[in-house]
């Protein structure tokens, strides 16, 4: 049954690029917000150069990464280095409830588009800036990508094997964490404005947001002076706990035994009744002490099985286990299929494209994901003509100045 989407009344003017900002506004678009995304062909969104690409072929309109982060948004190409471009931006500020940007600090000020200036244009505007280290402090101008913010926030030193250099989490890790805080901040500020009529400025340091995912380790240091380091897949409380080889090339099985019952069940599944009363493994504490021996035993069993079958065997006995999925297996995963995690959208260049769906379900007002992210300048006419009400002559004149690029 058709319903009004929850955020149908929310208008976002979005200057963010690459991942952290766009991932945050994508969620708002899924639930009905009108998101106008400003891009420039003069200063191309780096996100357009990040894979995976359609058919593995790089190209500014081929990035599945960029499409995934921008589905459902409208796109306007605008050169902000020109005053006429900034005039258009200010008209969009008058239209918008929220302005988001993720440039390095000073960029918006240099264009006269900082919060102080935007307030003159629209007194109750909500503006959110998100960057690696925040708008102030000695590292404010440190620009870069989420992998560097992850390195400087401790995630790298905490990921990998104790006898090896840090492996680091995959990719631009803080770009996966920070967007949740961005979206929460925007929604909370909208709620406050609804009640009080007051807008505000939000300064988000992606590093400071992401540190909330390391709090136990940070407290361990502030309380005890202990600086935790990477420990592979060891767990302070659980054994066996790890990623074990499965049959085949680079095939793996994750197992995490959390209770005594699960340990006994694992002994049975492995057909090793001898282990269930082996004193080395009789209690959780004993298993933690003998975890290396235990890991060898579990690995000897796991490598004889293929990962999905072992997962099913273990889960049937209530033992936490999962095959370690790659993209191909994720695409075929019955659970993700059931949850409609993959959404096919019509795409003017590729016929269809696939993006991820909403990561949660609202029972009465589910997300609607119907339109691929904008190709460069796709919605210029709609945004200038319909949203801003510019005349065809004015739009043509703007195009002639080259500002719509």
């Amino acid at each position, binding site marked *: 049954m058709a319903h009004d989407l929850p955020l149908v009344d929310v208008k976002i003017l979005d200057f963010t690029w690459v991942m952290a900002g766009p991932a945050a506004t994508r969620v708002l678009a899924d639930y009905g917000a009108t998101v106008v995304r400003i891009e420039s062909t003069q200063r191309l969104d780096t996100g357009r150069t990040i894979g995976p*690409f359609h058919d593995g072929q790089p190209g500014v309109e081929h990035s599945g990464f960029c499409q995934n982060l921008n589905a459902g948004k409208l796109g306007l190409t605008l050169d902000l280095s020109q005053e006429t471009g900034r005039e258009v931006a200010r008209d969009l500020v008058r239209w918008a409830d929220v302005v988001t940007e993720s440039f390095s600090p000073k960029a918006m000020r240099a264009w006269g588009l900082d919060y102080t200036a935007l307030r003159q244009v629209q007194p109750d505007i909500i503006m959110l800036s998100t960057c690696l280290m925040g708008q102030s402090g000695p590292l404010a101008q440190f620009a870069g990508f989420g992998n560097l913010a992850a390195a400087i926030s401790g995630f790298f030193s905490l990921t990998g094997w104790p006898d090896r250099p840090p492996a680091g989490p995959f990719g631009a890790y803080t770009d996966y964490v920070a967007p949740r805080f961005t979206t929460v901040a925007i929604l909370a500020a909208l709620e406050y404005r609804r009640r009080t009529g007051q807008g505000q400025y939000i300064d988000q340091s992606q590093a400071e947001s992401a540190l909330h995912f390391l709090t136990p380790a940070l407290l361990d240091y502030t309380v005890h002076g202990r600086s935790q380091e990477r420990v592979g897949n060891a767990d302070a409380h659980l054994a066996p706990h790890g*990623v074990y080889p499965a049959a085949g090339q680079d095939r793996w099985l994750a197992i995490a035994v959390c209770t005594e019952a699960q340990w006994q069940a694992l002994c049975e599944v492995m057909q090793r009744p001898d282990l269930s009363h082996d004193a080395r493994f009789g209690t959780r504490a004993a298993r933690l002490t003998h975890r290396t021996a235990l890991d060898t035993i579990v690995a000897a069993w796991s490598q004889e099985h293929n990962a999905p079958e072992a997962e099913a065997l273990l889960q049937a006995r209530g033992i936490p286990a*999962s095959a370690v999925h790659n993209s191909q297996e994720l695409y075929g995963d019955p*659970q993700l299929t059931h949850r409609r995690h993959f959404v096919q959208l019509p795409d003017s260049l590729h016929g269809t494209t696939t993006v*991820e769906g909403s990561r949660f379900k609202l029972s009465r007002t589910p997300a609607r994901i119907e339109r691929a992210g904008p190709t460069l300048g796709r919605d210029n006419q709609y945004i200038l003509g319909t949203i801003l009400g510019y005349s065809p002559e004015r739009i043509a004149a703007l195009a002639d100045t080259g500002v719509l690029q």
Partner: protein
Amino acid sequence: MLSPYRVLDLTTERGMFCGQLLGDLGADVITIEPPGGSPARRFGPFYRDVPHPERSLFWWALNRNKRSITLDITSSDGQAILRRLVADAHFLIESDTPGALAAYGLGYDDLAALNPALVYVSITPFGQDGPKAHYADSDLIILAASGPLVLTGDDDRPPVRVSVPQAYLHASAEAAVAALIAHHERQHSGRGQHVDVSAQQAVAQATQSGILATPLHAEEFQRLSGGVRVGELRIRLVWAAQDGYVGILYFFGAAIGPFTRRLMEWIYEEGFCDEVTRDKHWLAYIELLVTGQEPLTEYERLKLVVEAFTKTKTKAELFRAALERGLLIAPVTTIAEVVESPQLAARDYWQRLEHPELGQALRYPGAFAQFSATPITYRRRPPTVGEHNRELYIGELGFTAPQLAALQSKGIV
């Protein structure tokens, strides 16, 4: 920002971060613990290494800005009390196995009948429905099932997780987003709804869209220590310094190529490479490698050149140069260095919370963002077990002291 709203937090360790986030934004969050305290209080590390429910750093990390009451919701008296609380609540958050609360008459349908405006948030490993909805789980299992694990670690060893559990923080933060979207809608419709958060789907965000490689017919990313392998290309992000490691985004193209060119200029200045190496076509270098115009062996040589250089510098020297020269370098920072960071100090990030029961103030990571009109405040340290029983049961629900004592003796509170 959320001060008019009350949140009932019934979560296990899986979901506690969601309520804390809403509490940071001002909501009145009441964590409802089983008598004796939440099982999550059994997770370490512990204050001065003494395992005790009132000393869990893990629990403290997830429960500031909340009040605590104890209540046995498996008893019918406890369920009746919870229903009274629900009548005046705006949000309820839970993270039990799908159907577990419904078995106590506390499922979404049951409680929506009492309070149609309730936003009822469920955080589970795989979502409320589907073939894996009842799977046994843990942090590691979710990471395996959702994609980032296979991409993380050394290519000659098993995939590896972040040593501090992450999966349910992703899910719980996503749940706060979802709760506030449902809340926004409630302002128009007057109605709540059931919010169903899947940790698997939330964590899939950490594949950086790599999850889409198969449907897009693209090459899958492969794990590589301190980097990523795409096809034959071994992209490296972590480099040895004199006193540890640094992250360098040593890559090419229109956006990143100029940074790499500046790095190579510095390396040349210090005598670690020749002019030909310095002056490669960094903006188009990736195309040169992909088309074979530049052999991959030359790219491998370049990485050795960079490493020979970085090994002669300290992390601080490399980072200072990054700021001065505009390079994509960041130190691989230890937890100790994070806490001592001048940047975080300059922004007044760390927040002290007085723990009177310890006679000590502890330093917590501070506001996740700075709000100009409504700054985030840490109003309450994480509560002790049932610290607010009297306040809630007598002060708000109108029980008398003898009635509360009776509930306590029956083990309901």
